[in-house]
């Protein structure tokens, strides 16, 4: 018997690939946001709002990750925005290799790349894809305890969007509790309370992202 000390991360190849993707995006000056939530929390709805708000001033690409089909892409295509679709087939998350496969399709510079990950609160958190940061979306009907039950995503997300705040009067969701739970996982998270239906709270999110877009451009110079 022979023992070999290995000390290598199992996901080493994903991490390395994510680093290559990040280099590619940095070379293009693109701010890349990996948007993660459970199914139906409002990823596509929020992305639509961001596109409408930013498209006159910035170039935008959407990378749309779905297990199957292109329903969200066709919804978003009405906004006349560039979209690349990734179908993950059996996988419940996007990984760095799937994103790497579509890089050759990115032929021009985009200021903002919004990646809609597969609807899932668990798995996508574990796989870097080369993003600048992750944004978690939590919708009020899901309950204020989700950050406690799915801590990894909330720990890693720089931005947490609490969506469907228009439904607060009808659902059992305590904003204060949710904020405390998020803070418990990630004291540095930027938390926004919004509604993609009524537009409430979105202005603050736009201003935050505008600053991030500026910072990304300046980092290059």
């Amino acid at each position, binding site marked *: 018997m022979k023992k*070999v000390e*290995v000390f290598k991360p199992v996901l080493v190849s994903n991490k390395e690939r994510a680093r290559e993707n990040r280099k590619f995006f940095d070379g293009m000056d693109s701010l890349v946001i990996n948007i993660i939530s459970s199914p139906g929390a409002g990823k596509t709805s929020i992305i639509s709002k961001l596109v409408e708000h930013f498209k006159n001033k910035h170039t935008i690409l959407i990378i749309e990750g779905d297990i199957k089909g292109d329903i969200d892409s066709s919804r978003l295509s009405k906004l006349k925005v560039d979209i690349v679709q990734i179908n993950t087939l059996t996988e419940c998350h996007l990984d760095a290799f799937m994103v790497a496969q579509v890089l050759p399709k990115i032929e021009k510079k985009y200021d903002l790349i919004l990646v809609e990950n597969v609807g899932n609160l668990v798995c996508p958190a574990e796989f870097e894809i080369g993003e600048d940061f992750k944004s978690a979306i939590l919708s009020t009907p899901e309950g204020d305890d989700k950050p406690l039950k799915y801590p990894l995503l909330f720990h890693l997300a720089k931005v947490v969007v609490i969506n469907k705040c228009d439904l607060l009067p009808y659902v059992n969701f305590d904003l204060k509790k949710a904020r405390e739970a998020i803070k*418990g996982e990630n004291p540095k998270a930027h938390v926004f309370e919004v509604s993609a239906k009524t537009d409430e709270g979105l202005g603050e999110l736009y201003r935050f992202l505008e600053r991030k877009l500026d910072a990304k451009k300046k980092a290059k110079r």
Partner: protein
Amino acid sequence: MHEYSVTKSLVDLCNQEADKNNLNKIHKITLKIGRFTGFSPDSIKFYFDYLKPNTKCVDAKIIFKEVPIRIKCHDCKQESVLDEPLFLCPHCGKTDISVISGREFYVESIEGE
């Protein structure tokens, strides 16, 4: 759920390391797994049994070594081990902390011949 692809990476990594070190067969894989990862040892075991035939891992078993969640508080400077990923300093209750360990997921060693 995602353990299939993760276990595939694990088997690939172990086979590569066996090749590099002239091992024909792996008997034991020691895997460090932090308590703050989303990976379940049970599903890794399940997919491992499915993936190992016709590889150098065919007779291997995995030893899981769990790594606790350890944090350091920037306020009171103390280190603590958490049972759950709830990031409050148990000494002073502050949230300005760094995670020191718990996110590990790596192959520590392989044994074989």
